[in-house]
Each structure stands twice: as C-alpha cells, then as structure tokens.
C-alpha cells in the first residue's frame, strides 16, 4: 500500500493505493495521526487506487474521525470503487462518514 500526500489550499489530500488491511493499516494510521499532530484537520482522501479494505482499514478512519471533527475538520473520502464502498455500506458507515463522488465535491465540503 502507498499513500501520497499533497498539501492543497486549506486541506491535505491523501491518495491511497493498494490494499488497506490489518497489515498496512498501521502505516495509514500513522499518516493520519501525523496530519492531526501537525494540525492539518481538513483531509480529503482519494480512494481511486484503493483496491481492497478490511475492518482494520475502516478502523483507521473510524478511530480518528471524532478528533478531526472536534477541531472543525473532517476526513472526506471520494473515488471509492464499488467493492470498497460496499464494505463501508455493510456496516452502515457510508451514512456516518463523509463519502462523496469526486475531488471537487470533497473540496467543496471545506469551502
């Protein structure tokens, strides 16, 4: 799994590629924790190249979301493929987390 970070105007974009499972989620967790520690609270996450997600991957977003919201930020996911989106839907997380179709919709939430 690979995560590319791009700093935009007022937000941080994370592009996740590969599989987010019990093994790789440790790294993803570190990246998001570091963003929080450096006070980057508005995060958009491009999942276009995210092939697979397990519960450990979901846990990365679920465990941090409250911290970001408390600081007037959020984690916004977009470009999810059907397989990945279906995992969020199975647990009803699609209606709890912010999941949008594309990057412009994700950015619009922070404008």
């Amino acid at each position, binding site marked *: 799994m690979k995560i590319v970070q791009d700093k935009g105007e007022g937000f941080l974009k994370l592009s996740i590629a590969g599989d987010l499972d019990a093994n790789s989620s440790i790294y993803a*967790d570190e990246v998001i924790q570091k963003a929080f520690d450096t006070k980057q609270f508005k995060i958009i996450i491009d999942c276009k190249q995210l092939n697979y997600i397990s*519960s450990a991957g*979901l846990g990365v977003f679920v*465990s941090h*979301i409250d911290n970001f919201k408390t600081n007037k930020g959020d984690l916004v996911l977009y470009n999810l493929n059907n397989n990945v989106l279906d995992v969020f839907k199975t647990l009803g*997380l699609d209606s*709890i987390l912010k999941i949008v179709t594309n990057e412009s919709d994700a950015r619009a939430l922070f404008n």
Partner: protein
Amino acid sequence: MKVMLEPYLTRAKLCIVSKKESLADCRAFFKGRIDILPVDTTTKNKILLTLDEACANAIIHGNCCDENQFVTIDFTAYKNKLEITIKDNGSMLVNTSEHLDKTMESVIKNKQKGGMGLKLMHSIMDDIVYFSEEKRNICKMTKAY
C-alpha cells in the same frame, strides 16, 4: 454400506506463517478459488473479506502475532455451499455478542480501531462457530448459495 461423498467444486488447504504480512498472500491464494463459486461479484468480494477477517483474528488474537506459529485454512466449496475452517494455536474465548451488539456510533465515540471484523463476517456468512479443540482455536464458517 456405500458412502456417498458430496461432490465439491474446489477444495484447498493453506498453512500460513502467523504474521500480518501473510494476509495478502492468503487473499491472493483464495481469490481464484472464490472466483469459481456460483455467486455474484459482490458476494465473492464479501467471502474474500470474511476469510481475510478470520485469518487476521487468528494471527492477531489467536496466535498473538507469534511468527513461530501457523494458521491453517481449510476451504471446501460444494455445489451449493461453502465451508471454511480456520485454526490457530491459541485458546481464547471469543465473546461474539460483545462485538456484534456494538453500534457504529459507539465504535466511533470510543475511537476504536478494531472490533468491526466479526460484525462484517456475521453479515456475510450464514453460520460462524468458534470452539477450542486440542489447544487450538477453530473458527468454522458456512454459507449456502
């Protein structure tokens, strides 16, 4: 007496080293076998997810990520049902209701990183049974199609 054996579509047994890095190899190994099941793509993806979740539990909670231990996966797909048995070398008691009763709102509030795997597994498979036998944890899952 003549014993009739139920015909199966595919059958495989895999033994993996008890480390999280083994999970990707395990998924790659079983993906091709799951692909031949007579179910739609969404269900195939969910079965692969269930298998991954159960193996992760065995590695992390059963064997405590001890790389000297192993996890074995027995995968048998019959014409109309799938049976998966996963064994580790631990002897933990799985309290399924503790995890299944939790709402996602409480998981978020408590900033939990884990505890959602069992919920996913139970939403996909028809039946999941955990038991201990000869100092091994056994997770037996079935799904009809």
